[in-house]
């Protein structure tokens, strides 16, 4: 209960493949208390077996009726929440088609998964995140975005438009929630070698794609999750800004990260954009 939980409590949607699954492993490996959500029970059970200690929840963020059952199970598993990672994404129609050939229903589905779902789930969990902030735990919402949110790639209409909306939602929410002590960031993890990318670009040269594990390490750093002791010495695993791991209190970990708005600049400082070298991290 209050103040007892020292572990970082993290919920990840889309947690059974690609970046989401990598995040479950990376954050679980760093000692965070993790709950993850995905649509299919088999996948949820598989990842739960891979990562004992992580709680798998079956649910579809694009369905309004699933949001509160997901939120209830996340809170039951974690006893509260410090970080919500809205990672579940829909490409829209596959194979990719021009907007003119996109069915309205497919656009709606992409918006439901990529925009409305994260909005609903974040809203349902906002009370918990605000409680976490009042306890000095500096809660964070990470919305996984894409360069397609900023660049108009032909064929990526449903996906790009929905991610652009999510990106802007993140920026507005970041402004509005700064006074509550809740940070909202939109992060582009880069082009990764994931099932989603394979669906979108079947013929892609996978050697040119970033591994989801590398992207997961960067996001875990942004979440303020300490590296496990065995990894502390391996500098090559540290992508992005160095994270000091000798900080005792959870609250102070992120507080001392100026790039995350720490450093005592007051609530407004929380909105300072996040930048991870080598990647476009957008806020």
């Amino acid at each position: 209960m209050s103040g007892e939980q020292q572990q970082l409590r993290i919920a990840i949607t889309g947690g059974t493949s690609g970046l989401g699954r990598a995040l479950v492993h990376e954050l679980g490996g760093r000692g965070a208390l993790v709950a993850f959500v995905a649509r299919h029970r088999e996948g949820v059970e598989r990842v739960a077996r891979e990562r004992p200690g992580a709680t798998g929840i079956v649910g579809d963020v694009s369905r309004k009726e699933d949001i509160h059952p997901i939120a209830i199970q996340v809170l039951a598993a974690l006893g509260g929440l410090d970080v919500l990672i809205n990672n579940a994404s829909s490409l829209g129609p596959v194979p990719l088609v021009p907007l003119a050939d996109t069915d309205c229903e497919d656009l709606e589905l992409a918006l439901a998964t990529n925009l409305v779902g994260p909005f609903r789930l974040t809203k349902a969990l906002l009370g918990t995140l605000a409680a976490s902030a009042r306890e000095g735990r500096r809660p964070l919402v990470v919305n996984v975005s894409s360069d397609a949110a900023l660049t108009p790639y032909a064929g990526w209409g449903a996906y790009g438009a929905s991610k652009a909306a999510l990106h802007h939602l993140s920026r507005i929410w970041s402004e509005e929630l700064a006074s509550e002590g809740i940070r909202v960031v939109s992060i582009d993890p880069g082009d990764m070698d994931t099932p989603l990318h394979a669906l979108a670009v079947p013929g892609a040269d996978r050697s040119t794609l970033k591994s989801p594990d590398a992207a997961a390490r960067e996001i875990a750093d942004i979440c303020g999750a300490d590296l496990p002791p065995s990894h502390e010495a391996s500098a090559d695993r540290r992508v992005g800004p160095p994270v000091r791991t000798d900080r005792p209190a959870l609250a102070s970990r992120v507080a001392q990260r100026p790039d995350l708005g720490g450093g005592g600049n007051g609530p407004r400082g929380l909105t300072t954009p996040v930048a991870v070298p080598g990647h476009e991290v957008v806020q």
Partner: protein
Amino acid sequence: MIPASVATQRPPDARLLVIDKWGAITHRVRVDFPALVDEGDVVVANDAATLPASLAGIHVPTASAVEVRLAGRDSLRTRDVTRFTVVVFGAGDFRTPTEHRPAPPALDPGDRLRLGPLRAIVQKVLGHPRLIEVRFEHTVADIWEGLARHGRPIQYSYVPEPTAIWDTWTPIAGLPVAFEAPSAGFILDWRVIGALCARGAAFATLTHAAGISSTGDARLDRLLPLDEPYDIPSSTAASIEACKGRGGRVIAIGTTVVRALEHAAHADGTVRPGEGTATQRIGPLTPLRCVDAIVSGTHERGTSHYDVLRAFQDDAVLVRMEREADALGYRTHEFGDSVFLSDGRPTVADAELASASEGWCGRGDSKRGVVARVSSCREMLFASANRGFIPRSMTCPVASCRGVRDRFVSDHAAPVVTNRGD
């Protein structure tokens, strides 16, 4: 009063009946609530989210349909969900008022219940044939999944449309541990919280497992409220201590907050942080050590929630409150209008002041007797104020009480006139 029949948490025309510490009543639109909060006050709300606590299913031995309403458990810990205290209803749904629902079959220890995907076993009967303890035969994760997917929020017969889970979560809802919505919190949204903070007040939360408020069964309702676990974050305890230190008021959003804070209160009005279980009943004789004002729904006389209001104001004031709310068409129940009550019960200090000013307190009177007289003087002051003036030297049935009158006048800027024959 008319029941609020639409599950809208913040209807734009919601009203707020305000009673100051003198028992004076004014009416406001509820969105003006922040204007009642002063710099230095702390507003404390219950951030419990509402469980889908109504489980439809079958009593296996008799194959009869039942509705099981989760009503209590030992702690707020999310792992501690194997055993629940529950209230069992017979067949039917919320469209039948609870008092007209058929009784469930006789429930005996060992009986099996099948509640959608959940299986439970009756453990014991708790002082009433419909109040039992059950044990779920699943892992903790499966119990939560079963509740989350099969359970529905407890419904209200006066709300014709089914109430959805999102109708019952306040904007600040956190841990899902309340059995019914802590509905006083419907007054809050993030703009209101921002406005409170902009006025220089603090906002804090606790988590309290708000229980069932009534069952439609008088004998069962007398057992309410059940013991309710709560958790007060250390940041909230610190906020309250700072507030007390600067002379601010602790304003509780809802009866559950009063119950938790008063249970955890030290004599000086500060509170012990951490977990506890509120076991006490709050009523007219309960001294309030921590809370200075309450925001609440309009509760029905005779309920445990109404009794909490009696700790804040005398019955005579609450009678006036009900009369005015009735006359002005206030809506009652969870989605209805609200009241704001300052702690106005005369303190012994008030009585001693009145006594010292005029000597009307006969020597040898008990302190409680003095308090009662101050109350009756107040009611007479209101009767006078409603006539448009306050006599310069009002004579109360007991004695002249100029001290009370003078403080009333200075608080209300009421005209003081010389009465005929004064």
